[in-house]
């Protein structure tokens, strides 16, 4: 079988799951898999920054390893150059392995909270894009100073990835919308933002209206420029333990409602990557069109509740806990994955990690999840 034929099989498998149909087998799409150590255990997380091309090569080799070759998603290559600028999404500085952190530590964001109370007026009067640039200036981040992507290298590495015969279905590469509530909570820092919600709810809502509208336009344009099957949306600071249903309805869900409509109207699905516990808010997702969304929780939301409440409406992915793949046993991983396959699958389910597979995941544990999913 050629890689192209294999890709077609995997694409059909994934599309079946996304459309709530029964695939030939449950697809496996691990998020953020950093399994270069499965090939070379001496490598460290800092290699993402120091030797990004070598990391890409190792990720491609890892995708060919026995058992792991059954994973349908393609390895995430070309990450090296992006890590430094990732903090800017949160108006934060990055702490990097090998620089501020030990060589094998995971990069982390150090929130700065550069936005002031008066800045809400700037959003309302001049627009979010104007303030966003100002906030970048305040944290000393200049997007123009970042090295441009190496187009020749990316073409070369993507050719190698294509030869793996993995699925070609992935999220939009052009846009990753983040709910405006989350963006403000980072720009202000979480405690201050929660106080703003209490002290000046109307002003916050007015600013959110502007931000949400700008994002609708941005997402629509990005989908039109390069139509993806789905667009990834991250949600981390608004689970039902974090905020009340009243706050969620008024300040958060409005974003999902608007953005999902833009995505669905333009032929793309919404992939909700929702970390923390969302159980109490699952009922709000019932309003979305059938097969128009994907719910991708981490291990903190009871995935069986998601199946019960949303199983007829959207594909569910998940949710093998990072702790299980890093410190659990293969037997525990196998049993967990088997339970997911039997309880959530076989239709409308994609085997996935809860959030991501951590860099210290054990190879035998990831293999156990794969074996349980393919029924071996």
């Amino acid at each position, binding site marked *: 079988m050629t890689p192209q034929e294999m890709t077609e099989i995997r694409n059909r498998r994934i599309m079946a799951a996304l459309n709530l149909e029964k695939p030939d087998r449950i697809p496996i799409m691990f998020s953020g898999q950093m399994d270069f150590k499965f090939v070379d255990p001496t490598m460290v997380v800092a290699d993402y920054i120091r030797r990004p091309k070598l990391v890409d090569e190792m990720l491609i080799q890892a995708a060919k390893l026995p058992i792991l070759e059954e994973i349908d998603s393609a390895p995430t290559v070309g990450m090296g150059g992006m890590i430094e600028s990732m903090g800017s999404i949160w108006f934060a500085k990055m702490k990097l392995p090998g620089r501020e952190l030990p060589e094998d530590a995971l990069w*982390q964001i150090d929130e700065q909270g550069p936005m002031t109370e008066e800045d809400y007026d700037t959003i309302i009067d001049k627009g979010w894009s104007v303030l966003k640039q100002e906030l970048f200036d305040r944290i000393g981040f200049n997007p123009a100073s970042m090295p441009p992507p190496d187009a020749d290298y990316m073409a070369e590495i993507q050719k190698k990835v294509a030869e793996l015969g993995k699925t070609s279905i992935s999220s939009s590469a052009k846009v990753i919308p983040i709910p405006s509530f989350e963006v403000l909570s980072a720009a202000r820092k979480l405690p201050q933002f929660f106080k703003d919600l209490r002290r000046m709810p109307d002003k916050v809502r007015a600013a959110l209206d502007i931000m949400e509208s700008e994002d609708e336009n941005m997402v629509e344009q990005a989908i039109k420029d390069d139509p993806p099957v789905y667009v990834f949306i991250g949600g981390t600071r608004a689970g039902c333990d974090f905020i009340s249903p009243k706050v969620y309805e008024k300040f958060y869900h409005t974003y999902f409602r608007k953005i999902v409509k833009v995505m669905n109207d333009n032929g793309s699905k919404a992939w909700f990557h929702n970390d923390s516990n969302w159980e109490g808010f699952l009922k709000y997702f019932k309003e979305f069109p059938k097969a128009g969304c994907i719910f991708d929780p981490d291990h903190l939301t009871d995935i069986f509740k998601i199946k019960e409440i949303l199983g007829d409406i959207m594909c569910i992915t998940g949710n093998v806990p990072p*702790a*299980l793949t890093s*410190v659990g046993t293969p037997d525990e991983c196998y049993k967990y994955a088997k339970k997911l396959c039997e309880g959530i699958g076989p239709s409308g389910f994609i085997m996935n990690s809860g959030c991501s597979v951590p860099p*210290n995941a054990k190879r035998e544990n990831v293999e156990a999840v794969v074996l349980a999913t393919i029924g071996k």
Partner: protein
Amino acid sequence: MSKKLTDAMADLNEDAVLEEVKALKAKDVPALDIIAYLQEGMSIVGKRFEEKEYFLSELIMSAEIFKEASDILGGTGEASAASKYGVFVMGTIYDDIHDIGKNIVTTVMASNGFNVVDLGVDVPTAKYVEAIRQYKPKVIGISCLLTTAFDNIKECIQTLEKEGLRKDVKILIGGGPVDEATCKYVRADHVCKNAQETVEYSKKYMGV
């Protein structure tokens, strides 16, 4: 009893809390008494959280307001002096800079009458060793949001054992990815799913 301050704290009315603390201080009301009013308000916050009237967002806010009020009175040392129970030492393990969960737990513990020693984030093992020797807590908390830092907790606990400090202290762990498997792996005593569980476990262990 300043019902006004207690109510303002319970209602998370930041301006009213700070104004009342300053007013009481100006009237020479002892700092320990003012802290007690704030703690009473924080107990109500905790109760409202248990009853699902408040959520983590309110706990985070209450932590901020409590800290601001304590700062007017000379810092958290005053709050510690007002503690009814023993010392609770807590920090986020080294190589991890996450602080939200730790801050919630330390504030809820302080407001429940524990003398909290907050070691901060990215805390090296030596600092836990030093704090245990100095403050002799019966319970310590280690927060961790990264699976890549699990080995650091394990190393920290092993060091406490080697230093002969393990037998007299219960070690609680918590944080997003932390679960029973982690607890077993790092050889901690208990996983706390939230701040309230930390309070209950500590009270029970200290016999209060």
